[in-house]
């Protein structure tokens, strides 16, 4: 067992795993991008829902799981993202570009709203975000051009329904991929550590020099943009908004919480698993009506009771696996005793040791 000795350690950012993830990830993305050529459009267009669910779950997890901001108002940005498609479409942009431009505009709105929301803490923050979402809905339905309280359709849309589905599929895929990659890189950056320190103890984070508001604001805006993109995809898929109360519904928040808690909060993998679980349940059981919600509720309670870390958390602690490399691991650079020591200028790690098991070292 190698112990960690000053001067003979280095930090492993899991670079090798990162390369593996990039290669496998590129393969998966390519396969998904080509899927519409292999499967029936009716099948792949169903995956659009899975893509935006993963996007929503990842965004909420970034907000609550990594930055400690428990919001129940992300539907504000989902709704604004959907309505934003109309706004820019009416100005002459195609619906897909409208989705992207609208989401950026909503990022700017979220930036401004953060100054209001951040005045509130804990439970008040959660309620505040919900109030913001209600206010956003109330404002949107004032506009007759946006269908007032009735919802509306996209006026200038791709005529061919097959192409329409295809474009929406690719957009949704691009969004979920960008969301996951963006979140992965964010968590690997300095900001990732800062965010988690704020989540775990804000006072200590501040005392160590973390600009708490800045870190939170970046994530608040990013999560809003992700939700807006998901909202825009919902709008594109449904060729409009059925009703403002549906697209601004607080049940989006309930489902996001469900997906993240089921899958495992504070991990990148968890929300993906949670979204898949929810997607499958929704696919096969949603026609059960009220009973479906009962089943979802029972499942949520069972998992929080028996797997408090969620499905991924349980798998990870059982099998010590990670899919996405976000952590840091301090490893010994020296060879085990008896082997020739590596030259001082060329650390060649041939063995990595988990220091958790290693005995405490003495001061050097």
């Amino acid at each position, binding site marked *: 067992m190698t112990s960690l000795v000053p001067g003979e350690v280095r930090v492993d950012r899991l670079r090798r795993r990162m390369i593996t993830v990039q290669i496998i990830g590129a393969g998966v993305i390519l396969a998904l991008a080509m899927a519409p050529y292999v499967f029936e459009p009716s099948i792949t267009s169903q995956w659009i829902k899975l893509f935006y669910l993963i996007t929503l779950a990842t965004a909420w997890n970034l907000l609550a799981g990594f930055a400690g901001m428990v919001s129940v108002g992300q539907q504000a940005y989902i709704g604004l993202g959907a309505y934003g498609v109309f706004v820019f479409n009416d100005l002459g942009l195609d619906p897909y570009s409208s989705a992207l431009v609208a989401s950026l505009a909503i990022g700017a709105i979220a930036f401004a709203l953060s100054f209001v929301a951040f005045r509130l803490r804990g439970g008040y923050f959660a309620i505040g975000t919900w109030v913001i979402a209600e206010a956003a809905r109330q404002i949107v339905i004032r506009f007759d051009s946006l269908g007032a309280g009735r919802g509306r359709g996209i006026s200038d849309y791709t005529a061919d329904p097959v192409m329409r589905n295809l474009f929406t599929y690719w957009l949704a895929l691009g969004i979920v991929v960008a969301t996951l990659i963006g979140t992965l890189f964010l968590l690997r950056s300095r900001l990732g550590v800062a965010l988690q320190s704020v989540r775990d103890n804000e006072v200590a984070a501040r005392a*160590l020099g973390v600009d708490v508001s800045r870190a939170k604001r970046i994530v608040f805006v990013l999560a809003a943009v992700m939700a807006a993109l998901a909202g825009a995809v919902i709008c594109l898929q449904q060729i409009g908004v059925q009703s403002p109360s549906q697209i601004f519904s607080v049940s989006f928040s309930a489902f996001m919480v469900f997906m993240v808690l089921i899958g495992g909060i504070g991990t990148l993998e968890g929300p993906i698993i949670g979204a898949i679980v929810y997607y499958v349940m929704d696919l096969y059981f949603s026609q059960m009506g009220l009973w479906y919600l009962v089943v979802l509720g029972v499942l949520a309670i069972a998992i929080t009771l028996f797997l408090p870390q969620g499905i991924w958390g349980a798998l990870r602690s059982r099998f010590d696996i990670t899919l996405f490399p976000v952590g*840091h691991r301090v490893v010994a650079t020296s060879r085990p005793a008896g082997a020739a020591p590596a030259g001082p200028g060329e650390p060649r790690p041939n063995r990595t040791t988990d220091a958790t098991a290693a005995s405490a070292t003495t001061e050097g």
Partner: protein
Amino acid sequence: MTRTAGAGEALLEVDSVAKSYGALDVLTAVHLSVPAGQALGIVGPNGAGKSTLLSVINGTERATAGTVRFGGRDVTATPADARARAGMGRTFQVPRPFAHLTVFENALAGATAGAGLRGRAADDRALAALAMADMLGVANTPAGALPLLGRKRLELARALATDPRLLLLDEIAGGLTEAECDSLVATIRSLHTQGITIIWIEHVVRALLAVVERLVCLATGVIVADGEPSEVMRSDAVRAVYLGGAL
């Protein structure tokens, strides 16, 4: 003892500082001038306001009245994070670990945010801080899994990772064995010889006196004695505070 460069010049100046929580006056008119490079000890009974004084110095709490100057700049209204980046490191008496991050990542937060480092430089700074606090062996342990003593040590490691000019320590020696205490004293002494200015609140007087060159006694929010450590310990004021020998 003190660093020649800047010796005599005050790194920290606490001027008529008061702090109240509602009707409770915790600090009243505290004056304290700490030259660069000095190692200052603070003693005083529980509830005297020692931790509150550290909070007002590092910005965790805002002073109700008075000014705090650091490196010649008025920082009374400066938020704690900016003071940390300017070179104030602080440990908390009741540890505040980032429970879901590893011990190394806890230190890394200090090295990146506080010392403003990135990449390899930040890693190296965090590793050096862990080595100084004798925590490399548990570098990959989640901080939430540490026992109390480990958490206290992590407070020190994290503060060191910010590369402080002024280190504020709040009761970090309690509960240590004699050998552990000696090793802690050696660590803090070596920080002192590196020129880091230190303010150390400690009930373990033996440890404190092995390091500090000046001692302050705080009682009910005011400084009742200030000077050469052994003289302060013998002073009537300190004896009165401790009712003749609680120390």
